[in-house]
């Protein structure tokens, strides 16, 4: 059967014929009937037909399939083309061209389809790429992503173009926003710099991505809004601070002007003051408005202000002392003395403005100066009178000195002085008279009393006159007495053959005078220096300190005074003017006395008769404070800080804080051991520590 297929049909035919022949032979041999033979042949024929039909059906079906495939491909191709917006390449070519077999057609169309499919997928990828980019940018801008789905049906170039333009606009917007964000960041940075804030920190609060240099910066609406609001907030702060620092600068300049602050010191705040009128944009220096800087400037302002207040206070003090000085020089009692004191205190407490006080004092000074001018002439005379009185005093003393004619060093000078003094003393009554006349005219002119250190001058003069008279009388009496004594002595001499030494009473006198020290009533000494409030303060405080020392001193003084009086009874000529209680006790007693030691007043009451002498002595001993009045009582302070004497030790046991005297708590330990008191510290007392005897012995 391996015949070539070409001949297969004829071969089949032959084999069919041969088979029929074989069948006829068989039938012949078998002897089959014709009917049987026909039936068989018919069946054969039918079976053959069946086979044929089946084959044709099969072929038909195959053709239909082919056609279908072609149609499908064509449809797909068309769909792709339409999706891509291209003219279909393959439209009914079969109509125009001679009909090709179906298989050829299919073969022709398939590669085309493949090609189109490839192109479509390419296009699709392009779309996807663009869409992805769009989506990304949108996400960046809106923070939310509207998920765009690719529309497979429209992949045309136009659409692609559309998408591209959309992408471009988005990209432009993105870059715009980026620029805006950067701008914001820049301004934020400059603001932070000026305000002295941490830029990174601020930006991080707005959006974490902004503070990182590498990462892409967030450009969403939200971020931009927040950036803007942050800038606005900072700007507001900046303006506030700017106003603040300009306020500070203004006060700085005011203070500088007021106090002539040196330029170098000003230079440090140049940066502040040069911006005093700057607008908000002009302030760009880093840290110009930082809190630390503002605080620094503020501290400077407050420092200057304290300076100013203390300077003002100093000025007030200076002016006040100037006023006092003038008053002292012209022997006017500063009338508003206490009120000034109060005012100073008020400044210190901040209740009164130093400036107005200064003005007040200035006015007072003016007034006092004016008054001083009118008093000048009289004062000069008074000065002269005082000088004369002094000389008189000296002369008197000198006259009393029985050794005055002993030739010693400087004796000739003393003699000369005495001569001059005598001449002066002779002129004294006239001087007093003239002074009185002048004073009266002055008083009449002004309608006020002429006071000298608070004492009416006329009274002083009057007192002086009376005193002089008394002295005169006393002198007369003394002369008589001397005469008598002379007689007595002569008698004694007659009896015992010697004269008593004349020096004796004098030594007693001297001791008495020395002991007077700087105590007693200075107010009445003509010095006047101590009438100023400055010395008031010192002396009152010293007197008020409840130490035992002043009391002791007082005792000593009192006893000394007694001594003094004992020897000094004799009427001496001198300036017993102001304090003369017989004539004007009322004028001198009140108020002035109070600030001073209570000693004098006590003396006054008890030992009135002795007073003249006292006063005179104080006058003599206190001449030095009269000349240099600015040094008030150096003795007290020095004594307080001096190394103590032995008698201090018993006081120590008490620990002499005044507090212990005022409060009632009894301090129990005061160990008396053979008159020696040992000091103990608080701790020793608390611990109950007592020095053993052996130690005590060594201490004694």
């Amino acid at each position, binding site marked *: 059967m391996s015949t070539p297929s070409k001949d297969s049909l004829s071969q089949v035919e032959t084999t069919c014929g041969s088979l029929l022949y074989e069948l006829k032979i068989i039938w012949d041999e078998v002897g089959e009937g014709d009917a049987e033979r026909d039936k068989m042949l018919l069946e054969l024929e039918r079976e053959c037909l069946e086979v044929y039909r089946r084959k044709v059906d099969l072929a038909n079906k195959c053709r239909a399939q082919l056609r279908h495939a072609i149609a499908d491909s064509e449809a797909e191709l068309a769909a792709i083309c339409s999706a891509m917006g291209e003219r279909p390449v393959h439209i009914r070519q079969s109509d125009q061209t001679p009909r090709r077999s179906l298989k050829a057609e299919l073969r022709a169309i398939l590669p085309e389809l493949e090609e189109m499919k490839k192109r479509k997928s390419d296009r699709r990828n392009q779309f996807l790429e663009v869409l992805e980019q769009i989506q990304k940018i949108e996400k960046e801008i809106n923070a939310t992503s509207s998920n765009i789905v690719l529309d497979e049906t429209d992949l045309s170039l136009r659409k692609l173009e559309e998408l591209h333009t959309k992408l471009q606009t988005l990209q432009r917007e993105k870059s715009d926003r980026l620029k805006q964000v950067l701008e914001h960041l820049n301004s934020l940075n400059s603001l932070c710099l000026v305000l002295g804030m941490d830029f990174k920190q601020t930006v991080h609060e707005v959006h974490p991505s902004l503070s990182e240099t590498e990462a892409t910066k967030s450009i969403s609406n939200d971020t931009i809004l927040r950036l803007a609001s942050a800038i606005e907030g900072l700007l507001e702060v900046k303006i506030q601070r700017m106003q603040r620092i300009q306020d500070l600068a203004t006060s700085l300049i005011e203070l500088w002007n007021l106090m*002539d602050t040196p330029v170098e010191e000003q230079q*440090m705040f140049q940066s502040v003051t040069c911006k005093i009128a700057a607008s908000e944009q002009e302030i760009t220096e880093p840290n110009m408005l930082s809190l630390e800087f503002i605080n620094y400037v503020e501290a400077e*302002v407050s420092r200057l202000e304290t300076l100013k207040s203390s300077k003002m206070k100093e000025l007030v003090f200076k002016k006040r002392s100037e006023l006092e000085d003038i008053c002292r020089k012209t022997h006017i009692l500063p009338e508003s003395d206490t009120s000034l004191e109060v005012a100073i205190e008020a400044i*210190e407490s901040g209740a009164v403005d130093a400036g107005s006080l200064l003005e007040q004092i200035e006015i007072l000074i003016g007034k006092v100066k004016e008054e001083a001018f009118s008093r000048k002439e009289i004062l000069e005379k008074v000065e002269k009178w005082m000088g004369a009185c002094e000389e008189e005093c000296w002369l008197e003393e000198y006259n009393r000195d029985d050794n005055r004619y002993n030739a010693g060093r400087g004796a000739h000078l003393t003699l000369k002085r005495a001569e001059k003094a005598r001449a002066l003393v002779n002129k004294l009554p006239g001087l007093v008279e003239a002074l009185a006349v002048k004073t009266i005219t002055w008083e009449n002119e002004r309608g006020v009393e002429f006071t000298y250190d608070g004492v009416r001058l006329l009274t002083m003069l009057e007192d002086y006159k009376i005193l002089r008279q008394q002295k005169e009388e006393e002198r007369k009496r003394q002369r008589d007495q001397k005469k008598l004594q002379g007689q007595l002595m002569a008698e004694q001499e007659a009896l015992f053959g010697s004269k008593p030494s004349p020096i004796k009473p004098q030594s007693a006198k001297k001791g008495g005078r020395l002991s007077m020290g700087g105590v007693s009533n200075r107010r009445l000494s003509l010095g006047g220096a101590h009438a100023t409030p400055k010395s008031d303060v010192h002396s009152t405080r010293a007197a008020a300190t409840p130490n035992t020392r002043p009391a002791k001193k007082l005792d000593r003084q009192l006893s000394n005074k007694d001594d003094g009086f004992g020897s000094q009874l004799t009427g001496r000529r001198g300036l017993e003017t102001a304090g003369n209680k017989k004539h004007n006790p009322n004028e001198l007693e009140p108020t002035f006395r109070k600030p001073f030691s209570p000693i004098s007043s006590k003396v006054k009451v008890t030992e009135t008769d002795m007073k003249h002498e006292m006063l005179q002595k104080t006058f003599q001993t206190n001449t030095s404070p009269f000349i240099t009045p600015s040094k008030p009582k150096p003795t007290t302070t020095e004594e307080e800080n001096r190394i*103590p004497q032995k008698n201090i030790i018993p006081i*120590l046991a008490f620990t*002499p804080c005044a*507090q212990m005297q005022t409060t009632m708590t009894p301090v129990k330990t005061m160990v008396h051991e053979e008159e020696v008191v040992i*000091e103990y510290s608080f701790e020793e007392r608390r611990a109950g520590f007592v020095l053993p005897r052996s130690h005590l012995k060594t201490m004694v």
Partner: protein
Amino acid sequence: MKTKKKIFQKFEFKPPKEFETPFQIPNPPKPSSSTGTLKMTAAVPPLTGRELSNPPSDGISNLRFSNHSDNLLVSSWDKIVRLYDASENVLRGEFTHGGAVLDCCFHDDNSGFSASADNTVRRLVFNQQREDILGRHDAPVRCIEYSYGTGQVISGSWDKTLKCWDPRGASSQERTLVGTYTQPERVYSLSLVGNRVVVATAGRHVNVYDLRNMSQPEQRRESSLKYQTRCVQCYPNGTGYALSSVEGRVAMEFFDLTEAGQSKKYAFKCHRKSEAGRDIVYPVNTIAFHPVYGTFATGGCDGFVNVWDGNNKKRLYQYSKYPTSIAALSFSRDGRLLAVASSYTYEEGDKPHEPDAIFVRSVNEVEVKPKPKVYPNPAT
């Protein structure tokens, strides 16, 4: 700020040579109206500073800050030495003694020393909660100091001696005791600077020793003040010492014995109250120098703490009044903290008094920084 200081020197001038110089007491600066608008209102700390919890139950005899941390060592009459962490406000340790503890000091952050009324000098080891007895005096030990220069402990006692101890030879007392130096009187206060030891005793004696030659005092002095010495404290710059008395006065002394050196010394009154024309005078219990600025704080029985500028003779600051006497003061190593012991010091005998308390306050620069003299020659 650096330049500021330089300019201020312009204002300095030589202080007048009066022995008694009244300190200038500035007014508190008034708030200016122009700057008031934007004033930052910081939270106002309590005026007295933060009070430490778990304070001693009886009188505080001394307190000291460590040189290395903010630890605070406090000795008390309740026989206990306490170690606090001042910044954390924590009580770190307690050391019970046989008697009242009159003084204490740090060695380093791990150990310290104490002086007790039971005559002992002790070494305290903080992290082991252990205490060794370094040695004994014949009477209560009043004060104690540690010298970093020589590594010795110096104690002063009411037995009229000063003793130096070497804490390293802890085993036997013979080895720890370096020397005993007789004083003219009971030792009341001690202070150390560099190699100098200043010993203040009863009877107003002051002895100045050189630690390298303790055989006899370098200087024997008498206090310039008339009354009992309460406290002595050396200047941080080592040129002298401040000495306070029971009579509201502080003397500023200098070691330099030349005339020029001695001309600088002066004394001033403080811790006084004027009432109805009388001065009430309070003892000055303690002096503490600021480690940075050299200014110093004094505490008195009036309950006030004053800060002074010794060079310019000015009072810089007065803190608001504490409930009772100021028994002790100490600045921390950097001067940012000031520990204040407000504790009755028995100045009026046994009487009811405010509870003992320790306040730790943070120190403002303004309160301790020296200010130049204000305009010595006011213009116009």
